[in-house]
């Protein structure tokens, strides 16, 4: 019973983390049809930025921990904003309209460049940023110990899920996005400025990527190579749910989160295998993921 409960809570916490990473990736793919490998770099930059911010805020000061959390998140997202703007305006806008797989390779090239840029800026050492995690404390439920920080993450993920689907359905910009997702050319013909929509979407996606890095910074050791690991995980989540679908990313994150937690508690040897095994299994049955309908082939 305790194992089942801890699988559920660990799974939920992990799913929240995965969803926060994946939502930016799936948003960018849905609107722009770009599978953005550089999303891993957004995550890494967000995490490094947050760790630096935590270092500044908590070092030698006795300020409020909640303020530190806020400062950390804002610092991460600001970095994401700048990085996204440079990327989209500087590089990606030149490759719009090229083959999808070519654009993947372009973002892969950007990812490689940014990996080294991280080392140039922050050096090779790792940055601890555990203060917000420690300050948040934990709740004991009998034998089960829940970290308050995990609860904050789950709430944040839920807010993002509800907020994004609300924004897509009920705001003006959300409606515009839906139109562009449905058919880019018709949307342009109706007078929607697709270029601006693209830029704004990419910026939101980049900020979400950096946000995921920022909120994860206290839970992990911020060190080299975190982007490399995260991006394939995010791919798995997004591929399971269906690329471009936010509900899909949510369900994908839950599936991967619970499966991984179950594996960790029951058969730790298959932890990694399970994630990609589930991804392959879903893709075999539904090539386009759970929440995306098959596209008709065009002649």
């Amino acid at each position, binding site marked *: 019973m305790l194992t089942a409960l801890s699988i559920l809570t660990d799974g939920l916490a992990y799913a929240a983390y995965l969803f926060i990473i994946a939502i930016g990736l799936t948003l960018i793919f849905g609107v722009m049809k770009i599978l953005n490998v550089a999303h891993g770099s957004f995550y890494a930059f967000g995490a490094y930025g947050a760790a630096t911010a935590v270092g500044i805020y908590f070092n030698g000061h006795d300020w409020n921990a909640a303020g530190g959390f806020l400062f950390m998140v804002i610092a991460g997202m600001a970095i994401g904003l700048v990085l996204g703007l440079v990327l989209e305006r500087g590089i990606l806008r030149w490759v719009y309209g090229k083959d999808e*797989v070519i654009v993947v*390779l372009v973002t892969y*090239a950007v990812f490689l*460049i940014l990996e080294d840029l991280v080392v140039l800026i922050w050096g090779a050492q790792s940055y601890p940023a555990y203060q917000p995690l420690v300050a948040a404390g934990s709740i004991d439920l009998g034998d089960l110990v829940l970290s308050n920080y995990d609860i904050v993450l789950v709430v944040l993920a839920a807010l993002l899920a509800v907020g994004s689907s609300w924004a897509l359905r009920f705001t003006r910009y959300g409606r515009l996005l839906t139109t562009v997702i449905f058919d880019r050319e018709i949307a342009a013909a109706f007078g929607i400025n697709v270029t601006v929509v693209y830029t704004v979407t990419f910026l939101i996606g980049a900020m979400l990527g950096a946000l995921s890095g920022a909120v994860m910074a206290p839970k992990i050791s911020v060190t080299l190579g975190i982007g490399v690991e995260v991006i394939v995980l995010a791919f798995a989540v997004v591929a399971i749910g269906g690329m471009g679908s936010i509900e899909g990313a949510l369900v994908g994150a839950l599936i991967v989160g619970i499966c991984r937690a179950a594996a960790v508690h029951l058969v730790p040897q298959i932890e990694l*295998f399970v*994630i990609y095994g589930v991804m392959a299994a879903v893709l075999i049955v539904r090539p386009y993921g759970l929440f995306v309908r098959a596209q008709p082939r065009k002649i």
Partner: protein
Amino acid sequence: MANRSQIIGGLAFAAAAVAAPFLPDWVVSLATIAFANALVVLGLIVLWRAGLVSFGQALYYCLGGYVVALIARWTGFTDAFVLVLLGGIVGGIVAFILGFLIARYREIFFAMLSLALSMILYGVLVKTESLGSTDGFSVLTPTFIGYAPHRDALNLALYWLTLGICAFSALGVGAYFRTIAGALAAPVRDNEIRVEFLGVSVSHVIHVKVVIAGILGGLGGGLAALAIGHVDPNMAYWTTSGSFMFVAILAGAGSVAAAFVGSLLFEGVRSFAADTMPQFWQMILGTALLVTILFVPEGLGSLLLRLRRRKARPS
């Protein structure tokens, strides 16, 4: 035309083979690994011609490497020819089985599924403690039909073996490109429904390409395992696939030779950069890839073709 490029290719291989004893040792080792990797790249080019990008070719590379290493470890059998051949065969068989699945996918979905499959192998290997988990294990020193060289002689023998397998593969792939199935790659890329209206099964054509790429990946992995003397799960990680894809894009799908020249260039620049400025290595890679895609989308091999065409038509 085809004959001429075969002759040039043959001469190039012969020159590379003859030159080896006069080259410094490290050049020979570097070229061995570069040519072993070039086999994997050649497989990617076969797929790329049909518009397919595999972000999981490291699966076959790793399989080939582990097959070679494991057979030598379990049975003590160390003949390089047989081991590498077995690596290729296992790569081919696995590609054949996975092909039934993967040949149904295109574009980004093909890339994602192949990525998932290679990450499954990585996940399994990382957690298999009897195979050294993330550390991997070392490969026994190979023999060549009873001949058991050491050090420099071993390096040379491996180099010649790699060259020989590369020459055969280059010939084979060149011949395949001239068959009807090979020539159908570009039409499949442009419009596969029309190809089906011609009465050809596109998924069958792609299945064959997947198997060819799998065999080449297995051979390359087996050779690399022998040359490096060590195998570890990173051979299956997605960044390994990424660097193969990188060379393929840089070289371009235009010709078979491009895979070998591209891979040699890649390994050369890598060892140079690792020596002088390791912190900029990925940045150099990324920039080169960006510049290639933006300005020479057909790959560097196309520059040569362009030059030749200009010569053929003096204005």
